[in-house]
């Protein structure tokens, strides 16, 4: 099975080269892997229905529960036949639809095949996470297939909507999978079915997973992406949006219903949302003029119907669900292909423009009628079998069940109604509309549509085959004494009556379409999903812009202030609330420290108040010399010497730079309120640091073994009488190498900037040819104004923004 899936993807990878040369050949080649999958699956059908299951497993990341496990069981068999079978037909239909040399065709061939591959993987997967992998990949394929060239705004918007809605659901579902998998200790679906976990997490998992299934299968209120996706080429819609991808949601529910047998929310949610979807979308379909959109709403409606069945968690529900799943895949893909042919040959799919096509395209009618009959649930089609079984599910329970049954009947009335509308709209002679001209479609278009349409009838007639398949899947559920079997005739019973009511009601609805449309015009639509989607996306944009605009101020002082505030708020709080009082506090060690400290503080205040740059720089120098003085008092003359040297050098460098800067700080004074805020932050930061250094210095519990060792070993081990030297060049020589490297980097950077400006000046004078400038130094580039002129005020003093003192602080 892995080989089958991989072969799809590999061929798809190679397909663009084929498609660039011959589109028809590309689609033919593309049909081969799904055909192989179909043949392989049908070859194993007997064994699978006989109770055997074919399993393949490959470890991926076992630690995370990721494994590639495929399992062919009855449900997978049914889905594979649908996915690969319809896949082959659609791919064979494509050349006729797209025509040679169509860019959409070239693009679609590999994408459709890749989609067939990931869809196959999805239905065969026996691992929740693997399901998720393929699930999201189908979404990506759908995004690209709906968007196509993305030339039109509508394509882009529809593709994006489908993507956002289904990925949203997918991600929520992933969370559900993880909750489920972690609760059970396994992600293997067959193991979960065999031994469903219990506990409170299950309800959460159920809701999360259902959200995923609802989005993918276009259930209310997430359904609107599907009609919007009808901008896609019709074969794409027939395949993705009728037969396969949208089925993923109901398929998943069918897979997991046994796992969630103990969760009440599961059948309730599927019934409520499924029924609501079936009725609302069915009602919508009754009023659409675009045949494709009509079918899309029909699909939404039918998916709701299937959702109700597969979520029910009963034996009959499972039988009915699988039958409807198969029936819907067949008739809906056939109808989409038919509409595609109408569109292709008549140039329109608008009911208000088409007239008299039935007479011009008789073969198309022959295909469309059985498919629509299956959709409407007429005997002897598969659709009839499924619908009968569906009514049966809810006819023998309490009031709740009866309500569901009534809802299903109402939904079916609409289904019959829009089935009639479809046939009437596409083929009928409409008074007042001129007969539509149409070419005769070729066999290449008709045959792929005819196969599923007729299969719906054939399978209805030879119902035991479908019944065996359905029963094989339904075997997980308790069957009771008299399990339900699909059959064309169950005798005169309630289900048959329901079918008759649906049929009659539907025909009445169709006949009364004009008054009904008038009624609909007066109804206010309380829940417009499309508008809700658009509004929430617009809201998202607004929130994004609003939040970012407020948060991202673009001002460096603000950023620095926030960093300092964070330090104060977070670690200051921790220090204040949880620290022990300082022991052995001494205000000073030597009295000389006091005047020095006062001088430093005065200088600090002066720096802040200074208006002239030179004043500020000189005062910063005073601070540095003051600190050097403290070093002397503490008995570290070498350290003090370094400090004085660096301070002097910095001052000199500053003075050189200041020559080229305005005398005064040019930034306007901030508002008084802001000044206070800045001052508070600055003072707070200083106070925090002062307290922190006192607290931490007094916190040492044990003497530092390291410094004692340094003193002990300096002479013997490092051959130095000066311990500081020994540390710098021996004990921690690697730090020194590192810091020298930093200086080298800074020097290179500065040199590069200086060279730039020099070359820039020379180039401006024209003495340096343009080709050589880069050879000399790469920074010499035209328009390189930043380095040439004076650095802009307010951007820092040093061209590299490095403070040379920094290298020395550690000493």
């Amino acid at each position, binding site marked *: 099975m892995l080989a089958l899936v991989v072969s799809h993807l590999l061929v798809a990878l190679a397909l663009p080269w084929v498609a660039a040369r011959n589109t028809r050949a590309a689609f033919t080649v593309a049909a081969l892997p799904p055909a192989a999958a179909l043949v392989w699956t049908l070859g194993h059908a007997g064994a699978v229905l006989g109770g055997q299951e074919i399993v393949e497993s490959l470890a991926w990341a076992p630690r995370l529960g990721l494994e590639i496990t495929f399992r062919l069981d009855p449900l997978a068999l049914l889905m594979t036949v649908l996915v690969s079978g319809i896949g082959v037909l659609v791919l064979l239909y494509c050349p006729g639809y797209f025509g040679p040399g169509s860019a959409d065709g070239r693009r679609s061939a590999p994408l459709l095949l890749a989609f067939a591959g990931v869809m196959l993987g999805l239905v065969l997967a026996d691992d929740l996470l693997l399901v998720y992998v393929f699930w999201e990949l189908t979404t990506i394929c759908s995004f690209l297939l709906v968007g196509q060239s993305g*030339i039109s705004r509508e394509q882009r918007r529809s593709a994006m909507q489908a993507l956002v809605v289904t990925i949203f659901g997918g991600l929520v579902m*992933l969370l559900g999978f993880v909750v489920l998998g972690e609760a059970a200790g396994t992600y293997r679906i067959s193991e979960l079915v065999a031994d469903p976990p219990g506990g409170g997490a299950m309800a959460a998992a159920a809701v999360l997973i259902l959200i995923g299934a609802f989005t993918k299968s276009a259930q209310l209120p997430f359904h609107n992406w599907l009609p919007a996706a009808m901008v896609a080429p019709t074969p794409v819609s027939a395949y993705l949006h009728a037969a396969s991808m949208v089925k993923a949601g109901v398929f998943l529910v069918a897979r997991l219903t046994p796992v969630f047998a103990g969760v009440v929310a599961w059948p309730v949610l599927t019934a409520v949302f499924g029924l609501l979807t079936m009725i609302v979308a069915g009602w919508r379909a009754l009023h659409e003029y675009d045949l494709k959109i009509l079918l899309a709403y029909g699909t939404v409606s039918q998916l709701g119907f299937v959702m109700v069945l597969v979520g029910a968690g009963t034996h009959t529900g499972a039988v009915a669900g699988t039958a409807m799943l198969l029936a819907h895949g067949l008739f809906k893909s056939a109808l989409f292909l038919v509409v595609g042919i109408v569109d292709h040959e008549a140039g329109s799919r608008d009911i208000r423009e088409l007239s008299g096509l039935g007479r011009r395209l008789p073969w198309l009618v022959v295909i469309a009628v059985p498919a629509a009959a299956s959709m409407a649930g007429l005997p002897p089609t598969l659709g009839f079998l499924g619908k009968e079984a569906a009514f049966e599910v809810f006819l023998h329970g309490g009031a709740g069940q009866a309500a569901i049954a009534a809802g299903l009947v109402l939904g079916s009335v609409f289904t019959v109604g829009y089935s009639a509308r479809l046939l009437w709209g596409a083929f009928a002679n409409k008074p007042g509309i001129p007969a539509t001209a149409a070419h005769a479609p070729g066999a290449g278009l008709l045959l792929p549509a005819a196969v599923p349409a007729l299969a719906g009838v054939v399978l209805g007639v030879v119902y035991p085959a479908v019944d065996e398949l359905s029963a094989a899947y339904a075997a997980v559920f308790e069957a009771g004494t008299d399990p339900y079997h699909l059959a064309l005739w169950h005798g005169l019973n309630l289900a048959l009556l329901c079918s008759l009511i649906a049929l009659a009601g539907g025909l009445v609805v169709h006949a009364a379409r004009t008054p009904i449309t008038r009624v609909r015009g007066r109804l206010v639509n309380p829940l417009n999903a499309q508008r809700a989607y658009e509004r929430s996306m617009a809201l998202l944009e607004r929130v994004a812009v609003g939040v*970012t605009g407020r948060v991202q101020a673009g001002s460096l002082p603000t950023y620095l202030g926030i960093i300092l505030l*964070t330090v104060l708020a977070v670690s200051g709080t921790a220090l204040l609330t949880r620290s022990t009082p300082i022991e052995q506090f001494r205000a000073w060690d030597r009295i000389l420290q006091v005047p020095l400290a006062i001088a430093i503080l005065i200088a600090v205040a002066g720096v802040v108040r200074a208006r002239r740059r030179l004043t500020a720089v000189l005062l910063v120098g005073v601070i540095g010399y003051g600190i050097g003085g403290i070093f002397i008092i503490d008995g570290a003359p070498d350290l003090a010497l370094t400090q004085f040297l660096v301070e002097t050098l910095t001052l000199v460098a500053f003075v050189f730079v200041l020559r080229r800067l305005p005398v005064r700080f040019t930034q306007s004074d901030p508002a008084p309120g802001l000044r206070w805020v800045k001052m508070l932050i600055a003072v707070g930061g200083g106070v925090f640091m002062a307290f922190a250094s006192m607290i931490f210095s007094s*916190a040492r519990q*044990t003497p530092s073994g390291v410094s004692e060792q340094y003193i002990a070993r300096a002479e013997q081990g490092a051959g130095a009488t000066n311990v500081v030297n020994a540390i710098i060049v021996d004990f921690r020589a690697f*730090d020194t190498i590192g810091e020298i490297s930093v200086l080298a980097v800074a020097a290179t950077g500065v040199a590069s900037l200086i060279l730039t400006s020099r070359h820039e000046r020379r180039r401006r004078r024209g003495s340096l040819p343009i080709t050589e400038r880069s*050879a000399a130094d790469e920074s010499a580039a035209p*328009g390189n104004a*930043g380095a040439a002129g004076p650095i802009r005020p307010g951007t820092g003093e040093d061209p590299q923004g490095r403070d040379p003192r920094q290298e020395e602080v550690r000493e």
Partner: protein
Amino acid sequence: MTALVALPVLLPLMAAGLSLAFGRFADIQRVLGLVVLGAIIVNAALLLYVADVHGPIVLQLGGWPAPLGITLIADRLAALLLLVSSVVTFAVLIYSIGQRVADYGRGTSSTTFHPIYLMLCAGVSLAYLTGDLFNLFVAFEIMLSSSYVLITRRTTATRVRPGMTYTIVSLTSSILFLTVIALVYAATGTVNLADLAQRVSELPDGLQSSLGLLMTIVFGVKAAMVPLHFWLPDSYPNAPAPITAVFAGLLTKVGIYAMIRTQTLVFQHESTWQLMLAIALLTMIVGALGALAQDDLNRMLSFLLVSHIGYMLFGLGVYDIAGLTGVILYVVHHITVQATLFLVSGLITRHTGTVALSRMGGLAKAAPLVAVLFSIPALTLSGVPPFSGFVAKLALLQAGVDAGTWAAYGVAGGAVLTSLLTLYAVARVWSRAFWGRPQEPAGDPDPSDELVVGTGTTSPAMMVASGVLAATSVLIAVAAGPLADISGRAAVDLMHGETYRTAVLGGGAGG
């Protein structure tokens, strides 16, 4: 054997000197850089193998026993990140050589770029390998000072300010870092990480948590966690593509690495750590919303970078073996993918001549290969399976769900939402830049600033480099099994610091 631990630092340091000396010989510089960075890949792979099979490899520099001298140590985490980082630096070097040759011809040398770039690599390697807090500061300084030069190279009037924002914020955090080191030394009398583990635990609770939080803030600025992230989206987009790629790929992750290392090895896990979950959530959401508000491709990617830092903080906030496994996987994934995205953004803007998404269009047709190269890392970043982002995200979600607290559930939900927003953001790039009608390339006002080079030409080397990185992230997904295992073992090492301490200090831990 132990020399292997020093080589990833020493080789690029020495090569940087040579490269500077050969500043006028373009080919020598290029070969030198490629050989050295290629050698580091091999070296790192060896380190990872040895560290995984035989335990951490320790080198006491100068032969001084810890905690006297400086310790270099390669354990699983350090070796793994070194390996991934070296692949990225190698690919980015190929890209920038390709870009330079494409724009200026083969003979044109680049005096400062190669030496400084090698310095940056040396700093990154040292940051991973050092077992000493002060030496970590030195590593940061080497890395950052190189980055200051790289971000202000070829600077123009408009780019001075963003460069300054970057430089000054980084310097501020460096000063803060140095202050913290001073406080640590004052309180404990040692800066050796293994030794600190013992000594910090002897401090009163308040001091421990205060130090731990201060250190988190220091590294948080480098890692761009909200609310310390502002500098990043303001500065990164203003550097040329390869520079931004290596910054985005590596520098923030070095911050995360330092955070992981100190928080697991040195500090005790305590209740205030729950705060990290809130910060993780905030980082994810603020970053993702920021990305949605951008029209500038690079700025959008920068916000996404911030957003995904949140995932790493998430795992760190969960603070158990599963959580740390997730973090390690996420870091490995994110280093490659974010670098790839910025490289590809460079390719995109060469075709469009602008970073404004609203002025792009039709690239899928005009440059299909770029479209493929964009889509892979874009999907990877959004966590779309089966790419590496999915694997890493899955590990984090599992860790969050297993943790079972409401905070962890909340952040797991936030992570899922962020994935959606990320996908929306990159899908919008696709929709605007790759779909639609092809646009005339915008005139590039200054092609030499390397910020946007709208020449419409790309060299094979640039494509290959981007392709190699994209392939690496695919490989990460394919090899998710062994990678998750080794990350898991690394996480176990982190949670039980004994291995590390014993390796550094010898049998009697605590020294």
